């Protein structure tokens, strides 16, 4: 087993100088990075945003499947430069791949990876010759996944898997692949990677939502791929303090997760501008009516920030950057938000944060 002190390996970045005292992370993995890790992948700094007013009906939340199909095809074509979207998908997947589709169901059933989008991803994978049993929709908690009923949208044989069948159980996680860190004196200091990721999947598609997040500031690609693939992560918050700043990027960097996550498809048909990652009060939902495509989770999340900020401003909520828990300020919460986790992840090598270096292409349908 390879053991290494993660921050020691990062040495030259001197991250602590920029961000205050950081927890000491120890990453344990046997897996080596791919020649070109999936994150930031083949298209670093490239983001395709596809918008369609017809994609979802505000209020009823009815999704137009045909429009979603068109959005996905055009987004993928634009990302890769291919004329046929099938060729675009073929750049990432082969018929022998076992593909995990990382859902986001933490706010289910009211906000989740839209089953219509997930179904369209499955359809595109199957068009490449990938059989239903080679496709896994997965998330950590069964109650959340079951509330969505993905089985009504995807062909029989596609796996729909919730990892943590008993809360706190690490039976579905890999005991040899983990990040060890002591945040607040908690006794269980390990966060283990989902075993399907280390042992079964050859590729992963990440399907986050567009959401405010009470701890991370926003939750997009990085948060979904990081906290959504490891056990025992809620321990990173206590009192007003959250360690999402450094923990998100640290988790996302762990192999083989980093190498296998080859495609990011952000579901922004509906979003959450306050109270995220949940949607307990529907006043906090809004309709960006868009999807983003790319391989670079940092660049996409960098685009997510202004989407959430703009809606919060429109609604009179404080900025996600305001470091407060003052309840008198509308939009504050239990934790001081850490939207800086996106830039932090960029410094780790997960993608491009500098707005001047991000190439964004907008498509309106």
């Amino acid at each position, binding site marked *: *087993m390879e*053991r290494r002190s993660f921050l020691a390996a990062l040495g030259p970045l001197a991250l602590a100088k920029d961000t205050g005292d950081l927890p000491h992370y120890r990453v344990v993995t046997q897996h080596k990075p791919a020649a070109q890790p999936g994150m930031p992948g083949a298209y670093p700094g490239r983001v395709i945003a596809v918008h369609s007013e017809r994609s979802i009906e505000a209020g009823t939340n009815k999704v137009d499947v045909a429009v979603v199909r068109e959005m996905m095809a055009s987004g993928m074509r634009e990302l890769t430069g291919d004329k046929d979207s099938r060729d675009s998908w073929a750049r990432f997947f082969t018929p022998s791949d076992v593909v995990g589709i990382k859902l986001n169901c933490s706010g289910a059933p009211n906000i989740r990876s839209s089953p219509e989008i997930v179904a369209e991803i499955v359809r595109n994978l199957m068009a490449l010759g990938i059989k239903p049993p080679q496709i896994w929709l997965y998330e950590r908690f069964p109650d959340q996944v079951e509330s969505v009923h993905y089985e009504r949208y995807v062909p029989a044989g596609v796996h729909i898997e919730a990892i943590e*069948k*008993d809360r*706190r*159980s*690490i*039976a*579905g*996680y890999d*005991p*040899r692949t983990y990040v060890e860190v*002591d945040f*607040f*004196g*908690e*006794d*269980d*200091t*390990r966060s*283990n990677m989902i075993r399907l990721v280390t042992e079964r999947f050859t590729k992963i598609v990440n399907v986050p939502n567009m959401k405010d997040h009470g701890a991370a500031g926003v939750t997009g690609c990085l948060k979904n791929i990081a906290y959504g693939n490891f*056990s*025992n992560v*809620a*321990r990173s*918050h*206590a*009192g007003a303090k959250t360690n999402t700043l450094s923990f998100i990027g640290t988790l996302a960097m762990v192999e083989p997760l980093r190498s296998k996550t080859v495609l990011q498809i952000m579901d922004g048909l509906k979003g959450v501008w306050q109270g995220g990652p949940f949607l307990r009060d529907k006043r906090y939902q809004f309709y960006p009516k868009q999807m983003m495509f790319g391989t670079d989770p940092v660049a996409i999340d960098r685009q997510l920030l202004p989407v959430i900020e703009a809606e919060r401003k429109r609604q009179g909520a404080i900025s996600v950057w305001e470091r407060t828990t003052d309840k008198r300020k509308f939009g504050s919460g239990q934790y001081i938000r850490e939207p800086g986790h996106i830039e932090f992840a960029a410094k780790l090598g997960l993608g491009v944060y500098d707005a001047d270096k991000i190439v964004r292409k907008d498509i309106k349908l």
Partner: protein
Amino acid sequence: MPALLLLAILPGLYWDAGPHTAGTLKQAGIDRVYVPQSQKDAWTAQGVDALAIDVAQLTKLGKPGVQYRMNQASATAVPWIDANGWQMDRDPKRTYYYDVPAAAVPIAMAEAYSRNARAVIHTDPPSFGRMLMFLKGIDQPALPAQANIGVIDDGSEIAAEAMNLLARRNLLFRVLKAPDPKLDLNLQPTAKNASDPFAYAQDVRQKLGDDKRLVRLYGSDVVLANLTGNGAQARLFLINYSNRKVTGLRVRLRAPYPKATLHVFGIENATPADYLTEAGATELTIPEMNAFAVIDLSR
């Protein structure tokens, strides 16, 4: 060394329902019972191995189990474990008494058995009988308790609570009258340094360092460990206080043991998974456990 040949002490059932219930005991597989003095002769006349005991003379213990509370140190609900093993460590010469419902019987019996402590339990015979059968099946001579922390006990409530909290964090300690330089850490809890036992236990953990902990558990907040051993072999006792099964519990021991046998109450032929020995440590996973698991390890 004749003492080493003795098997560990098995908990006994305290039964005051009268000799007419002998069939209930027989059905539960219980062939020895503790009874009130006034009933002893009648039980003996029934052919039952009955020992008279005065429960008023025994040290009463609370019902072991878990309460879920919010704790300031974590955003998630952390369990509060009501455990008694530390009291047996503190005073191993006493005989302890539990009056517990059936659901708590395996935990109570596991506490006593893992400490090799004398205990009688007033409860439901079938539950007692099932656990007794399990314990008889794994019984072997008790090994010395393993610990690398010494607690100098002045008999105070402060010391008691410090021991309780150390045990709850799986910080294995030995009760001492004076410091033992062979241990990694010697403690003397006082009103001054341990007025907040929770913080005290956390401080002890920091001082010891996680790398020096003899046992680490991952994947559960409701399992407590007790380790015995003699260098060549070890026996690790794990008690799940939650009354719900724990799956995928990862165990780390600070010693390399290439061989291990797993015994889990209520589960036949349990086998450790993802076994690993490296860097002077052993790691393995218990796929599933109910109230009690025992791992026999050897070099």
